């Protein structure tokens, strides 16, 4: 009981359990894939629509598949001022790291160097949301995603691609597919672990 009453642990467990369906990974993967795939495409508008409605889409799927299985929880809203400050400081830190790296390995005034290292830049940017999710949930899964996104970022930055943004586009598609498939696997395991309660079962509602 004593260990159960650690409020921080309780909050982390509640958050972790609410995210155990893998749908955030599916949506994030989809966004990254389409960002990479549609970067130069005339149907770029599709990507914008996906970003705008991603929350609604996840909510819709959760209402049908997740909430009937594990219930619904709403968390306290984070202070938007603190969140924005955190995001801003993190992005400044990433830019400083990139600036330092490019200074060491190339010329910061050379635009092509920034393009070359852009997969790593995006990889480090992705660390932000993953680190946030890891600290809120205490789940190692998000730490693994953060490591994969940086490692892949380094990998795609080091490979020589003939044309400009090919490395970045391939990176986004690759990490997107990785997250999308991971999310789908987690979602299917989730559906298997939590079958729908039988109609009229006492735990379906109060």
């Amino acid at each position, binding site marked *: 009981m004593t260990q159960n009453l650690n*409020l921080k642990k*309780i909050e982390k467990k509640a958050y972790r*359990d609410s995210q155990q369906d893998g749908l955030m990974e599916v949506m994030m993967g989809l966004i990254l894939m389409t960002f990479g795939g549609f970067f130069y495409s005339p149907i770029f508008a599709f990507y914008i629509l996906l970003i705008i409605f991603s929350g609604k889409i996840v909510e819709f799927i959760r209402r049908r598949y997740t909430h009937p299985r594990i*219930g*619904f929880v709403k968390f306290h*809203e984070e202070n938007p001022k603190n969140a924005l400050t955190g995001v801003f400081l993190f992005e400044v830190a990433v830019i400083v790291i990139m600036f330092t790296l490019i200074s060491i390995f190339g010329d910061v005034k050379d635009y092509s160097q920034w393009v070359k290292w852009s997969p790593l830049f995006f990889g480090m940017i992705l660390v932000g949301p993953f680190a946030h999710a890891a600290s809120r949930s205490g789940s190692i899964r998000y730490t693994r995603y953060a490591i994969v996104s940086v490692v892949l970022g380094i990998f795609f930055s080091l490979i020589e691609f003939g044309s400009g943004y090919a490395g970045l586009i391939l990176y986004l598609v690759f990490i997107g597919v990785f997250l999308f498939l991971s999310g789908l696997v987690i979602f299917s395991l989730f559906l298997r672990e939590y079958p729908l309660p039988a109609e009229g079962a*006492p735990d379906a*509602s109060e």
Partner: protein
Amino acid sequence: MPVSDPGENDHHPIAEIDRLIHEPARLMIMAYLYVVDSADFLFLMRQTGLTHGNLSTHMSKLEAAGYIEVVKEFVDKKPHTMLRLTDAGRDAFQEYRERMIQVLGGDS
């Protein structure tokens, strides 16, 4: 020199523990609702490990005390129960925590 009876004059914090919250199952419900904005019956049942009947009974007691707000609604023609800590419940839980820290010395 008269010696006072400690039980008579000392106001021991344990005497002021809220017994309604102190019951383990209700304490768990209050703790879960304290860290979130609101949760439905199924989520609380899964998180606390309480049975439907147990959770329902404790929920009624906490609601009667004004510590939680229970909203019953229909979602897709199915009954759905949402629970949320009231301001009074939040204050009571906070006070309970402080009292327990006083009682236990606050080292844990």
